[in-house]
């Protein structure tokens, strides 16, 4: 009798264990995960919108301090920068225009185009990944990415282009978007030129124009 009861008790325990085992395993795994996470350094991890916004604000201040006032205004108003090709001295088209230029978008390829016609030439995919991933991401703030591209282009266009992956237009940046942006840029430059003229009229021609006259000329011819 006792033997029978004992056997039944053992069978019952084994049966209960088999039923409970998946739940126990899940609970243990969850506990282990919580323990591992609690052991990690309490430093910043993951995406924090507030931190990213503050980083972007810092990056904008830095960008502004490094580029021309006119370029800063362009970036602030339009969200991208236009940089003339540095081979322009050799490659000037009729009328002394730069033969090509780039649009710099944050975290997008450089888009090369012909200012006189608006024709898109190539996309140059280039990134500046920080593999130390201090906050879990290798991605610089938007304005830092723009500044890095601007500095690299201004300093050594050939090297940057050599490091980039070249693609035909439309691979990552929608050509329709680029054309819209070129139209916006042309309008922006016209308005700015008009503002400059009014300003110089008021100042009796004494004020210094910081605008690059090529820009307005080129933009005027873009979509003529």
């Amino acid at each position, binding site marked *: 009798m006792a033997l029978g009861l004992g056997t039944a008790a053992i069978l019952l325990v084994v049966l209960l264990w088999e039923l409970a085992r998946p739940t126990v395993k899940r609970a243990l795994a969850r506990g282990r995960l919580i323990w591992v996470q609690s052991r990690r350094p309490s430093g*910043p991890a993951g*995406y*924090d919108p507030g*931190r*990213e916004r*503050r*980083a*972007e*604000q*810092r*990056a904008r201040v*830095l960008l502004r*301090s*490094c*580029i*021309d*006032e006119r*370029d800063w205004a362009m970036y602030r108003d339009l969200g991208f920068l236009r940089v003339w090709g540095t081979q322009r001295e050799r490659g000037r088209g009729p009328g002394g225009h730069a033969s090509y230029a780039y649009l710099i978008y944050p*975290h*997008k*390829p450089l888009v090369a185009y012909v200012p006189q016609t608006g024709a898109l030439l190539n996309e140059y*995919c*280039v*990134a*500046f*990944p*920080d*593999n*130390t*991933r*201090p*906050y*879990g*991401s*290798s*991605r*610089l*703030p938007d304005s*830092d990415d723009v*500044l*890095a591209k*601007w*500095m*690299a282009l*201004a*300093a*050594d266009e050939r*090297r*940057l282009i050599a*490091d*980039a*992956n070249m693609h035909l237009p439309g691979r*990552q940046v929608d050509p329709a978007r680029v054309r819209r942006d070129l139209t916006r840029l042309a309008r922006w430059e016209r308005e700015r030129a008009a503002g400059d003229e009014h300003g110089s009229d008021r100042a009796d021609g004494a004020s*210094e124009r*910081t605008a690059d006259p090529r820009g307005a000329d080129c933009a005027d011819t873009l979509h003529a």
Partner: protein
Amino acid sequence: MKLLRMKPGHGEIVLAEGDVDVPEQERELIEAFRRELDAGMWAAVPTGSPGARREAELVKSFAEVPREAERVIFFPRAAGGALETDR
């Protein structure tokens, strides 16, 4: 002179700051400069003043940094490709 480094999730940080005419401070600047280059960073010196055309130059050693430069900005070296999904 200030050595700045672009940093994801933060913006720029000041790595070192000092007067290049003070030997001890210059030495610290040089050490910080080398550390960044050894870590694979590019170094750029923004040039030009307000009102003048702004430019930048890439430098590969501290000796190439103009003595009058106010800032050297380090940023990760360029790599082909874009990081569309990396956030």
